């Protein structure tokens, strides 16, 4: 009995997933699946990462928009401590990339401070090129790896 129940619940979930895939992944569709104020909410509906140009730590226009949303959300949910992780693509040397990752994390941190997030809530850590996401050696993967990720705890 309980097995059949579980199966039908699963089937229902697949249906929902299929529906949201068919829609063009609007923010409103996603909000229904996560608790507002949760880490999942932040990742899905705000965006936890901003991207950089090659060998650069300048926050781009698309990054500013993401960080503006982050600042708004972080002000609303003041209970989180924030660590900004700086990352690089693999086309630099290990030591230089550790420094470049720190510079990117710091750029995102300074931007959030300017938007009114207290500096005391914001730590940084650099992973250089040691934690790629995604793993890949093409332009698309490199562009996604030049990033600063806002992690909450």
């Amino acid at each position, binding site marked *: 009995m309980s097995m059949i129940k579980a199966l039908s619940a699963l089937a229902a979930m697949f249906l929902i997933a299929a529906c949201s895939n068919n829609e063009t992944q609007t923010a409103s569709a996603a909000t229904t699946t996560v608790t507002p104020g949760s880490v999942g909410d932040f990742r899905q509906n705000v965006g936890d990462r901003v991207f950089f140009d090659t060998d650069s730590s300048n926050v781009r226009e698309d990054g500013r928009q993401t960080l503006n949303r982050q600042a708004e959300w972080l002000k609303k949910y003041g209970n989180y401590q924030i660590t900004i992780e700086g990352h690089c693509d693999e086309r630099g040397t*290990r*030591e*230089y990339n*550790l*420094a470049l990752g720190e510079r990117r994390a710091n750029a995102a941190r300074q931007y959030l401070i300017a938007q009114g997030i207290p500096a005391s809530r914001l730590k940084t*850590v650099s992973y250089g090129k*040691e934690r790629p996401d995604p*793993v890949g050696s093409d332009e698309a993967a490199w562009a996604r790896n030049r990033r600063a990720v806002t*992690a909450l705890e």
Partner: protein
Amino acid sequence: MMLPRRTTLLGGAALATIGVAGTARAQLTIDMTRPSFEPVPIAIVDFKGDAVGAQMAGVIRNNLQNCGLFRVIPSSAYIQKDVDATSPPRFQDWRSVGAAGLVVGQVTSVGGSIKVDFRLWDVVTSQQATGLSFTSQPSNWRRLAHIISDAIYKRVTGEEGYFDTRVAYVSETGPGNNRTKRIAVMDQDGANNRYLTDGKTIALTPRFSPTLQEIVYMAYGENNGPPRVYLQNVDSGRRELLGNFPGMSFAPRFSPDGTKVVMSIAENGRTNIYEMDVRGRQLRRLTNSPAIDTSPCFSADGSQIVFNSDRGGAQQLYVMSAGGGGERRISFGDGRYATPVWSPRGDFIAFTKIGSGGFGIGVMRSDGSGERMLASGFLVEGPTWAPNGRVLMFFRQQPSSGGRVGSASLHQIDITGRFERQVPTPTDASDPAWSPLIPQ
């Protein structure tokens, strides 16, 4: 614990040279300054006596063949099958198989120790070229084979060898997006591999002390803790934190006398170079720029430091006085330059170069002139010098594809760009650091 004391290891004196060395020994010598030379044909007979003798000969063959300067004649070609370790061989038999040199040895059990006698015969002149005798614990047989390899290398090339050394490196395992990176150390030939960190956090960039069997490296703290620099004894495993700074500290490297460590500290988007006195732990700032100044390395005489910086836009190499100041750019080619490493001989600086076509390992003179590229690839990085300044080790990373991380492996190459070979490691490996000759 692995290391014998000098008194026990070199318990015996060098054997008296039999006969007087002649002048006609051209074929058992190599002039490495010449643009090209033939490898020296050499025969290495299994050492007699204890069973370990055959293993010792195997280690010596492997060392000499791998360095590219020797051609080891296979034992199947030998005419004289039984060679006494103490009396002269039948030189004509060895000339017939084309050998210029012949290595023979004897292993004898003496109480709880082994006594090893070895001789290098100059087959061309029918004379003994060199000979040594050692007494040590049986467990040291590999080291004795490396020390003998170094003696042969020195006799033939006139340069110090590099076989009785170790290599620290980063062992890499697991998926590409969550890779375990541990510091490992092994003998130069890949034997006796073991791990110095547990892999719970990422550990990177090991660098050997030029004077002791100690390394410095960078490791992340637990729970997202900032990366810090640690000092660790390779034999005892004893580990100490080298300075607890608010920002990330990384890219450590010893001074030639081992008393100081230079490193980078990153704070608020700036990365500068600092020097720490290992004993007193006093910190001194050496650069003060808004740029990234990192990968510092002392000159062999300790008077200067080379580093890379993006202060002028792209990453380039700069040299400054060891105490800071007098900074001047030395790299002017196309592309970005990184990880400069001064040769222990003082003549060259090895570096990683990043161009539009990929990565390369090169050397230049210490004033930046005479740049030469030795190896290239999708991603090659992290040169380190053998203690004699004749050979470099570095790592190669293959491209990742389909979500699978490309493999990483250690390679060594002669500074002339010859004899590149992969160094065997049990796992993927990056960022090698060559030790000095192990103290005897």
